[in-house]
């Protein structure tokens, strides 16, 4: 036996437990409560190695210590694609606490995984894990006690996010552009949050929740049923929670495809308007 069994402490469980306790205690004392959000895979494309339909549906709270205490190691930059926030962060999480808070509830998550998200509440930042270093520090007293997580801000690409945490889900919700309706044959304004119904006689054809309202112009989200008749005055649009407002028809409606959301980064509509006077050769090469 090469090592000295009297002085070498790399096999003493009591010493290892002490270091682990101190690690956990230090992170609890000086860290931050973060939300760990695992990525749920739907159908991994084995050719390109990606899963565009993956989703984020759960959160787990675990405390993490901020290793990059001087700042986010990045700044806002302008590229040909607009503003990008290049924040990065290095976090330390205790192995024992990760197991207690996450692995015990989801046995498929035995460690922090690259691709999963971390919500950092102080700056309301949604980070994506790029790398997890599991051997730093390197086996003090013969055991590993923590993970060092390297993460940078999430590049969102329309993955479904439904964690029931509004601060996180807003990234997804804001990307869902709502349908806009121009109502006619009535007066008054619905209130945001009203559930509006499209009704023929006493038959409810469809309903949705008002997300925007300005006199006879409303935007609806969460539409169920049929909600899109144009110019037909035999229908009524009303809301039980706003009985003073009723319209007899939908003059026009648009169901916008998802443009860039909440921002003006995309100028597709502006280009369309400006280009209306232009006369294009629109031959489809496949026709």
């Amino acid at each position, binding site marked *: 036996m090469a090592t000295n069994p009297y002085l070498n402490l790399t096999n003493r469980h009591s010493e290892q437990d002490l270091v682990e306790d101190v690690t956990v205690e230090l992170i609890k004392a000086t860290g931050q409560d973060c939300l760990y959000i695992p990525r749920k895979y739907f159908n991994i494309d084995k050719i390109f190695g990606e899963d565009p339909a993956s989703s984020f549906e759960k959160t787990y709270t675990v405390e993490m210590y901020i290793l990059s205490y001087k700042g986010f190691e990045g700044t806002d930059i302008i590229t040909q694609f607009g503003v990008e*926030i290049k924040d990065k962060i290095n976090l330390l999480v205790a192995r024992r606490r990760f197991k207690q808070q996450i692995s015990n509830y989801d046995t498929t998550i035995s460690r922090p995984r690259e691709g999963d998200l971390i919500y950092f509440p102080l700056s309301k930042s949604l980070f994506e894990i790029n790398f997890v270093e599991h051997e730093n520090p390197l086996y003090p007293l013969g055991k590993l006690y923590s993970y060092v997580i*390297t993460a940078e801000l999430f590049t969102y690409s329309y993955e479904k996010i439904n964690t029931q945490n509004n601060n996180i889900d807003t990234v997804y919700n804001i990307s869902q552009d709502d349908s806009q309706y121009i109502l006619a044959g009535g007066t008054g304004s619905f209130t945001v949050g009203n559930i509006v119904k499209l009704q023929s006689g006493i038959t409810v054809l469809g309903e949705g929740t008002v997300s925007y309202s300005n006199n006879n112009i409303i935007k609806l989200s969460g539409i169920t049923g049929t909600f899109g008749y144009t110019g037909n005055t035999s229908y009524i649009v009303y809301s039980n929670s706003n009985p003073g407002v009723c319209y007899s028809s939908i003059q026009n409606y648009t169901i*916008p495809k998802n443009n860039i959301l909440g921002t*003006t980064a*995309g100028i597709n509509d502006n280009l369309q308007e400006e280009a209306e006077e*232009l006369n294009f050769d629109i031959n489809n090469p496949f026709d």
Partner: protein
Amino acid sequence: MFEYTYSENLKKIVIAFGSLFNNIDVRHKNNDGTFKEIRVPLAYASQEKFIQRYLNPSSITEGTRIENQLPRMSYIISGIAPDSSRKRGRLNPYSPVDGSSGTCVPSGYQVANEIPININFNLYIYTRHTDDTMQIVEQIMPYFVPDHIIKIDFNEVIKNVNIPITMGPNNLSERFDGDFSTRRINIASFSFVAKAYIFGKLVPTTTYSGLSASIEGLGATFGIIDEY
């Protein structure tokens, strides 16, 4: 030495070029087998930095902070050069006619001959997923075999001008190697050349009517010139 003239010829070509790509969609298959359709945002790349910071989410704005939202596309003019191979004589200004009424009616303007120019455009595509890039490329490339002709009304008399746009070399850049400190980045760039024109300003033509001329001695009277 040069007098002011600006007819927004170039701006119209910029708009026309951009509008070719403002209906590009990407589809992601949902868990239930349906598809989520995403309209790919398009922007002109070189915008004022403070405008970008003012209009778009950045680290200083309220709300949940993410790095970016993809897919995105942008485009920019990368060069403008005269094309001498398409140049016509400069000493023959012409007076366009308007045929919209069924007969050829002088437009009332005289236009100096156009200057043919080649405008180089770069189109950039930035996606998170390689499949998104493939979807976008397949919606663009078939229209350029090798060129796609658009028609532009430059002003009230110069209309339906054919502008062939030719696709040049492309570059699909997938930065996927290296350590784990960065993510994979899919950026594709396409180059195009628009064979366009810059037209000089319109000069109203002068109309003379009721003029006649006769040459004495020959006994002949020439016809009345109604318009010139």
